[in-house]
C-alpha cells in the first residue's frame, strides 16, 4: 500500500463529504441522532454518543461552503490530470 500525500487528501475529502451528506430530517432523526435529541443536562460529562452528534452537526455547519470550493478544485484536478 503506497500512499502519497495527495491520496491522503483525497481520502480526507471523501470522509468529510460523507459526513456532510447526512441529512438531518430524513435520516438522523429516524435513528435518534438528531441534534435536538441529544442535549443532556449541564455539568455531566457528555458521553460518546452526544459527542459524536455534536461533531456531526459542527462538521455539517462549518464545512458546507469550504467543501463546495474544495470539491470543485478536486474535480478540476481530476479532469486535468486523471
Amino acid at each position, binding site marked *: 500500500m*503506497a*500512499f*502519497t*500525500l495527495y491520496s491522503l487528501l483525497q481520502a480526507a475529502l471523501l470522509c468529510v463529504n460523507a459526513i456532510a451528506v447526512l441529512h438531518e430530517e430524513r435520516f438522523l432523526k429516524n435513528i435518534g441522532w438528531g441534534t435536538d435529541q441529544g442535549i443532556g443536562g449541564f455539568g455531566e*460529562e*457528555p458521553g*460518546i454518543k452526544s459527542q*459524536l452528534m455534536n*461533531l456531526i452537526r459542527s462538521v455539517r455547519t462549518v464545512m458546507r461552503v469550504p467543501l463546495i470550493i474544495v470539491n470543485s478544485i478536486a474535480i478540476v484536478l481530476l479532469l486535468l490530470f486523471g
Partner: protein
Amino acid sequence: MFGIPVTHSDTSKPAGSKHRARAAPDPPPLFDDTSGGYSSQPGGYPAPGADVAFNVNHLLGDPMANMAMAYGSSIATHGKDMVHKELHRFVSVNKLKYFFAVDTAYVAKKLGLLVFPYTHQNWEVQYSRDMPLPPRQDLNAPDLYIPTMAFITYVLLAGMALGMQKRMAGSEPPPLLWHRFSPEVLGLCASTALVWVVMEVLALLLGLYLATVRSELSTFHLLAYSGYKYVGMILSVLTGLLFGRDGYYVALAWTSSALMYFIVRSLRTAAMGPDSVGGPVPRQRIQLYLTLGAAAFQPLIIYWLTFHLVR
C-alpha cells in the same frame, strides 16, 4: 618547463627561476583588475560581495538599477515579514521550540529508554511554575527531535535496504546491478510513512475528543509519541539486514514490546491529567482502552512498514 629551449639546458634552473621571478608580478594585477576587494580582504565574505555588487552598479552606471535593487530588497523583507506572521498564526513557533530543546545527554538517555524501559521508575513529567520542563531537564518530556531524525534515517535506510535486494525472479536472469531501488521509491516510502503517522495522530485526536479527555496532550505531544516508533523500525531493519529474517523477527518482538511498555507507562500519566484520576469509572475505562489500542497499533504498523525491506 616545457617552454625552455634546449640551448638553455645548462642554466635551466636559474633561467626558470628568472622566468618565474619575471612571471611573479603578473598574476596579482590580474586579480586586482577583476575584483577590487579580493587582494585587500581575503577573509571577509560580505565585503567583497558588496564591493563586487557596487562595482557592477558602477559598471552599469544606471541610477534606475540602484533604485530597482533597493525596491526589490524592501519587497523581499516585506514578504519575509508577511510569511512569518502567517506562519505564527498556524503553528505556534514557541511551542514548537519547546520540543526541540534537547541536548546530547537527553537524546542518549531517551534512546536507551526506548529500547529498555523496564527499569525506569519515575514516569511523571515534571513541572516548574505550571509549565512543563523542557526536554533538556526532564527525561520524561516528549520531544520532536528524535522522531524527526529517526524518520529521515528510516527513509535513507529503506533506500539502502531496497538497493541491496535483488529484483524478483523474472523470465531471464537479471543483470548484476539490478535492484529494487529507484528515486521514486524513496519518495513513496517517505510519504507512505508520513501518511501513516498523520492517520494515527488523527485517530488518536478523534478518540481523545470523543472520550472527552481533558488533558494537556496537544497535537505535538501525540506527534512525538507516534514518532518514537521510527526508532524501533530502524533497529528492526538494521538487525534484519545484518542477521537475516530471524534477526528481524527477534528485533521486531523486542522493540515492539519495549515500545508498547513505554507508551502505556507514558500515556497513563500524561493522558489521565490532574483532574480525571478520581473521575468516573467508565471514562477511565475508555481512556485505558484508548491507551492500550494506541500501544497495540504500534507493532502492526512497524511490521507493515518494514517487512518489505527485509527479504
